[in-house]
């Protein structure tokens, strides 16, 4: 488990990053916390002749909260998310989810940007960001653009980000209502057998809005519009939850791995989603 030789760069600004990306194209990759990338390099599953460390590029480590949205810099770590009291007030689901990622050591290194840019279906934040309808800010030589999390993921490790673009921030509209993030895993530090993110609005006993996304149950995170829609206008009773779960099961496409076969994963996905909805609703 030794990576192949690589050149290491530590540019001081974004211009430096972009010019390196332009120069080396496919052969270059940026590194944030390194806690997905370095293991892949050690296993020689990722060959990165030119490694660009984002550590010294400023301006990507802030969490800004304004009247209607949150901006999280790409280099904000999972530990930062957990420790940020104001963030926990306005968007508690972020903290609840971050606490279920890996272990404290990994969370001190792993960044929000790396987690959402990685494109690994096992990562927890992509589904979370889809649930929250986040926008990813991408900066490239052609300038800046914004892509919805719900449109970002194409296949495992394939995203809408171009090779020469850097993800600089995540923008999230202030979430409303009750929330919950539930994850079943085999042990600390494991990716989900099934995980669900739910954000739900209760208007006098009736569900006014619901957003549901699932993790590690397809080769991308799954935002299940149909599952959310199944709850809207109901009292989130047993029948509505059943319909939502059925809709979600229609959207996911898990594959067998060491966690278990497809039938098991689907069953657990249903159970986890039900619990997530119930908990979110109880907080709504």
């Amino acid at each position, binding site marked *: 488990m030794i990576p192949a030789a690589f050149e290491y760069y530590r540019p001081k600004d974004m211009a430096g990053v972009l010019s390196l990306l332009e120069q080396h194209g496919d052969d270059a990759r940026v590194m944030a916390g390194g806690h997905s990338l370095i293991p892949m390099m050690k296993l020689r599953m990722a060959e990165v002749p030119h490694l660009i460390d984002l550590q010294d590029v400023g301006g990507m480590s802030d969490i800004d909260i304004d009247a209607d949205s949150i901006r999280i810099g790409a280099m904000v770590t999972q530990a930062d998310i957990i420790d940020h009291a104001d963030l926990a007030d306005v968007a508690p689901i972020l903290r609840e989810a971050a606490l279920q990622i890996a272990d404290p050591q990994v969370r001190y290194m792993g960044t929000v940007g790396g987690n959402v840019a990685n494109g690994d279906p096992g990562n927890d934040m992509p589904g979370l960001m889809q649930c929250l309808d986040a926008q990813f800010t991408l900066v490239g030589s052609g300038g800046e653009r914004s892509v919805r999390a719900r449109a970002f993921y194409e296949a495992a490790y394939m995203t809408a980000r171009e090779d020469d673009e850097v993800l600089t921030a995540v923008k999230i509209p202030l979430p409303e209502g009750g929330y919950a993030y539930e994850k*079943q895993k085999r042990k*600390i530090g494991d*990716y989900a057998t099934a995980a669900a993110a739910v954000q739900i609005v209760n208007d006098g006993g009736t569900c006014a809005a619901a957003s549901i996304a699932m993790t590690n149950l397809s080769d991308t995170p799954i935002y299940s519009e149909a599952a959310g829609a199944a709850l809207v206008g109901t009292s989130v009773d047993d029948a509505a939850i059943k319909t939502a779960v059925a809709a979600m099961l229609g959207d996911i496409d898990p594959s067998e791995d060491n966690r278990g076969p497809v039938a098991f994963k689907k*069953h657990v996905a249903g159970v986890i989603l039900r619990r997530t909805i119930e908990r979110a609703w109880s907080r709504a």
Partner: protein
Amino acid sequence: MKDEVTREERLDNLKGMGCSRKRVEDARFTQGKGNYVDDIKLDGMLFGDFVRTPYAHARIKNIDTSAAMQVPGVLAVLTAADLEPLGLHWMPTLAGDKQMVLADGKVLFQGQEVAFVVAEDRYAAADGIEAVEVDYEDLPVIVDPFESLQSDVVLREDLVAEDGSIPDGAHGPRTHPNHIFTWEAGDKQTTEEVLANAEIVAEESMYYHRTHPCPLETCGCVASMDKVNGKLTLWGTFQAPHAIRTVVSLISGIEEHNIRVISPDIGGGFGNKVGAYPGYVCSVVASIVTGKPVKWIEDRMDNLISTAFARDYWMKGRISATKEGKITGLHCHVTADHGGFDACADPTKFPAGFMNICTGSYDIPTAYLEVDGVYTNKAPGGVSYRCSFRVTEAVYFIERMIEVLAIKLNMDAAELRRVNFIRKEQFPYKAALGWEYDSGDYHTAWDKALKTVDYDGLRAEQAQRIEDFKAGKTRKLMGIGLSFFTEIVGAGPVKNCDILGLGMFDSCEIRIHPTGSAIARLGTISQGQGHATTFAQILASEIGLPADSITIEEGDTDTAPYGLGTYGSRSTPVAGAATAMAGRKIRAKAQMIAAYLLEVHDNDVEFDVDRFVVKGAPERFKTMKEVAFAAYNQAIPGIEPGLEAVSYYDPPNMTYPFGAYVCVMDIDVDTGVPDIRRFYALDDCGTRINPMIIEGQVHGGLTEALAVALGQEIAYDDMGNVKTGTLMDFFLPTAWEVPNYETDYTVTPSPHHPIGAKGVGESPHVGGVPCFSNAVQDAFRAFGNTHTNMPHDHWRIWKTANELGLHG
């Protein structure tokens, strides 16, 4: 002279046996100041690493090393062809088989060593590995031992004669080219008769899955051949350094006095570091070839996929009883998957280890055991992962059979155990499969355990839970796991225990320094067990010098007396006994010196804590410290100067620690997630040397038991690919997954051990695995479950619930 210090204070000052002396090792371990093999750095040291086969069974048509030799920093690439002229392309295994050091024409398991790349550093070695081109030709892969015994595919052509006949193996006749041995114990015919005529017979087949000891530190070594003086120094993660020295000498032809083997600090072994690995041989050869020190250190994947696995036993049992539950007979057949080479680490006469302890803690008059060893395309090994030889398998087997029998009898499993326990007055007890249990008081331990956990209350709660579940009020079931185990440790008596002909005694050599401190060296080697702490305590009590004034040293074959190392909970039973015996020799000489100094007859002084006292005149004494000084510096007629002793201890019998465990578990039927609510562990390891260390050992052993029972496995697919080769999939529990353990004890000393100690490091693992497993199985008993195989990971628990129709 007036003695200001009370006897009590003098005892405290010794920090001898029975006190929770803090571990002296921990100061360096907790500060990152340990000295492990990978910390060793020598001038000009090179690094070696392996090209490993991705195929589980293939012929090697060609190995092209030319591109690798062009990689900057690569100095040499060794293949079997290079080792053959030295006769080192194969090496003997501990089980009497032989094993390829580097692939000789074919490979037999994924991850097998094919070529050894020697480079200036580990990075260059890794690049060199990528550049070696190996031309493989696929062969049919066999991962199932039952299929193996039927198959036309011959895994080991080297073990079939030219005329196609099958020569005997190291353990007698073989029935098929892929068959290794049949080993039996007990009385087959009587057992069959008893079973045929029994009132009740329960049967079960169970698979004890393949797993791996997975020590935190992987295996490795540094070999340094000094061409000027002809001496080879070999540092390594060896659980048995002296045995390694002898084996290296025998296979390399280097005279034993020219070989120095050093085991520095070792980061856990659990059986994984007992055997000899190709990395050791290749490093030695590479050092001889290059004239430079060569280091080899496995990475985690290398360790998991290629070094010694544990278990992989397919066990079929039949147990008979009267209607009242008195067990009358037991039959066990095992199909043992040994992988591509038989590299089990067992005493030579016991190819299935001490599996014949499988009658457990019960008075079973008739029994028969038969074990068939089989080759498959999996990694070799079969070591005792935190247990004495195959004892975990044996105890799992009997503790499951008891539960299955309880179901058949419709009887409470705790009561069934009580009815069948060997009674206190039956010890020493001769078991049907041959062992003589030294001492035990099982009923007392069992009653204490059940009372502490309020067993009846738990059963009542469980009954209510089942009602609630059926009424749709809860989706959680409750399991009560019971286990009562008897370990067999301390191998062992040289008359029947040897490894490759090396008798399994152990040793201790003590030197008392003139100022009253001491050094003791042993033939064992700690891998985290705390020997430097506990052995000093034994000595403190025996010779009356404070434990803090005694250095314990192990692991350097140039200085330590010969011994067989540490595994199988043998250190305290064997080397601990040697320590006490050597201490007594010191005391005997010291007594003569004290008598001379006190001007009385030898028999007129007696030992008291830290001094010799004139009988009947307690104010007249000489402390051990004073005696030590006199031993060196005073001319005493008829007594040689100095105060040293050595003892080689050949134990008269094994020791038999036992224990009673209870686990309470809640199981989420819909997700398969278990939640351990309570775990109670009562251990009886005889005399307790250091209660704190015992507790630590129990916690560690239980945690590894939890791992094995609930998820830890080395799984292969049909092509022989290891599916669990990293810690992502190989379950290593963290503090998060581990419950609070409640520990307890009774004390039943071993009658034949000088201090009555039995050993404890492995008991909790042996007893823990069936306890966790029984808890899972018990949760589903009311719904028709009799047995499901481990590991009980989420999906397998879910599957059990699903098959029992609990998902509606």
